[in-house]
């Protein structure tokens, strides 16, 4: 990168923001000078219109169009349900669906269980803040960064050579053969899932920890006086107290997992039977020149997310009513 390139980029950003501010400023200026009679209406339009127009042309129209595209082939002709038939009959596409199901079962359950256990273990302990930061840290970094971190853990060297990947080092330590982990189905899918669990556990832990702290101390103390042990207190006091948060955590992680793309893209690009719907959607639509199939996959993704979101919203409303 030369200095000229850098200056060019700075100019673009400054210019972009300047134009944006100028447009907003102009809108505000004109609105205040609108004729008295229509002023309220003009002001309303001025505040709402920019966002609404962007959403209409950038989200609502495209989503409708994608739904239509799902019923066309790569020449744009109407082919009915063929794309969906392809998805549910071709071996490769079936593997993609199967993997997505494995992801969406394992990631939410394991992240939540580990996050909850950790939150309970470190609750009110010395250095709780630092314990939390360590596990929450993966939430801050990109999925791409996380993928590189874990590719390094899974790195392979010939048997006999010193291993540089942590996993193979552990395996050889116990006398096993080093493996090319990312190229071995079906274990590679599970190794990718570990990366997602590694990221999402922090989220589960922070939300559940806050929820645990919301349980009245009196309840815990009363249970203690009754002579219950730690496990009984957890089962009968803590768990019922955080049920709402548990559901929210599980559904939220499920939604994130269904949409997972970057991890698969960066670690295997969906090869070696590791593809998932979000990755396959990108591959079909933008690499293989099959926008119809890509759209069909996007529609299926939407249909899978939909019930979880509705359930999530319902639980949140119930919680609100209870409070």
């Amino acid at each position: 990168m030369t200095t000229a390139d850098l200056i060019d980029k700075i100019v673009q950003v400054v210019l972009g923001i300047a134009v944006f501010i100028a447009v907003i400023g102009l809108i505000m200026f004109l609105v205040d000078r609108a004729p008295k009679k229509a002023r309220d209406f003009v002001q309303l339009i001025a505040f709402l219109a920019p966002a609404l127009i962007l959403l209409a042309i950038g989200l609502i129209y495209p989503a409708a169009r994608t739904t239509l595209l799902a019923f066309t082939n790569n020449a744009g002709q109407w082919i009915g349900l063929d794309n969906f038939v392809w998805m549910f009959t071709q071996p490769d596409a079936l593997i993609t669906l199967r993997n997505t199901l494995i992801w969406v079962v394992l990631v939410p359950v394991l992240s939540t269980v580990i996050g909850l256990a950790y939150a309970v273990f470190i609750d009110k302990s010395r250095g709780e803040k630092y314990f939390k930061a360590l596990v929450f840290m993966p939430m801050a970094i990109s999925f791409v960064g996380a993928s590189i971190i874990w590719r390094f853990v899974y790195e392979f060297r010939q048997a006999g050579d010193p291993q540089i990947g942590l996993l193979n080092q552990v395996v050889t330590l116990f006398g096993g053969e080093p493996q090319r982990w990312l190229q071995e189905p079906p274990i590679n899918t599970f190794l990718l899932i570990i990366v997602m669990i590694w990221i999402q556990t922090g989220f589960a832990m922070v939300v559940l920890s806050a929820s645990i702290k919301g349980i009245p101390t009196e309840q815990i103390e009363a249970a203690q006086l009754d002579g219950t042990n730690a496990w009984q207190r957890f089962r009968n006091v803590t768990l019922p107290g955080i049920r709402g948060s548990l559901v929210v955590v599980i559904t939220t992680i499920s939604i994130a997992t269904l949409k997972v793309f970057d991890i698969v893209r960066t670690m295997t690009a969906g090869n070696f039977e590791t593809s998932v719907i979000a990755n396959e959607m990108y591959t079909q639509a933008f690499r293989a020149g099959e926008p119809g199939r890509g759209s069909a996959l996007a529609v299926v993704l939407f249909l899978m997310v939909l019930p979880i979101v509705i359930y999530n919203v319902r639980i949140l409303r119930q919680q609100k009513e209870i409070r």
Partner: protein
Amino acid sequence: MTSTTPNAAMLRPQDAGADARVEDTAKAKRVKRRLTSRTATIASLIIAVLWTLPTFGLFVSSFRPRDQILENGWWTIFANPGFTLANYQEVLLSASASSPQLGAYFANSLSIAIPATVFPLVLAAMAAYAFAWVPFKGSSTLFIVIFALQIVPLQMALIPLLQMFTQFLQPAQEAVSDTLPFIPTSNFLQIWIAHTIFALPLAIFLLHNFIAEIPGEVIEAARVDGASHSQVFWRIIIPLALPALASFAIFQFLWVWNDLLVALIFSGGTEEAAPLTQRLAELTGSRGQEWQRLTAAAFVSLAIPLIVFFSLQRYFVRGLLAGSTKG
């Protein structure tokens, strides 16, 4: 349906200090005690170590000389000591065609993320104000529609949006720059607009919940004194909503900084516009064995999120929890 989620509650003023209050009362009672039991201590230590070790290993490796990274594990660092900054120098500064040249991509990531945070923030705050304080017919219906848009995965919008950009936006940009040659065609415009659109539903929803709780008397008093809506918005709403704006800004900035999918589709993939994540993904694909570069490159991209994480943890956690369903 409007203000029901704990997600939104994270941004609300009265809840903002809840965490702190809990911590304070805990401190006041001096209930600091040892971990629940020995097993729990060991289990939490194991989890903490397992969660930190992969990052730590990559971090250590990024400072090791090339031959050592490739020939022995980072855990043997004491047997094979070595320290170098050459990896970072190479990935950031080297101009040779075969090196990652991350400097340019770092600039791109910033050039994408700053406007893609400012634009949706302002537009969403305006819309949120209108929904909260300008009564009009159909207000709540329209708000629910926008709330519902959050469930549309952005995958649903990608293909048509790209088609529209190439059909209308690109020719328009070229026409503008032909007639007014001092305006360059921006390589970032598409990706700014895409990120702005995808951010709006969540941003409007969260900011509305915050702005709606600003005391009505303040706004009415200003209106009675003859202040216009735009004056109320800039002089009263924006200053009062700063905590929520900050949380959302941090979340959105990191979301854009960490994004790969939107970048892959709308950046064009050249060093003129592609962000760090895209370059990293490309490097892992084509040079997946050159760990001396990958380790350092990964940490170049992680630096900003980690700085934000450790310096603004409170805002960061709040923003992140509030936006966790985005995408």
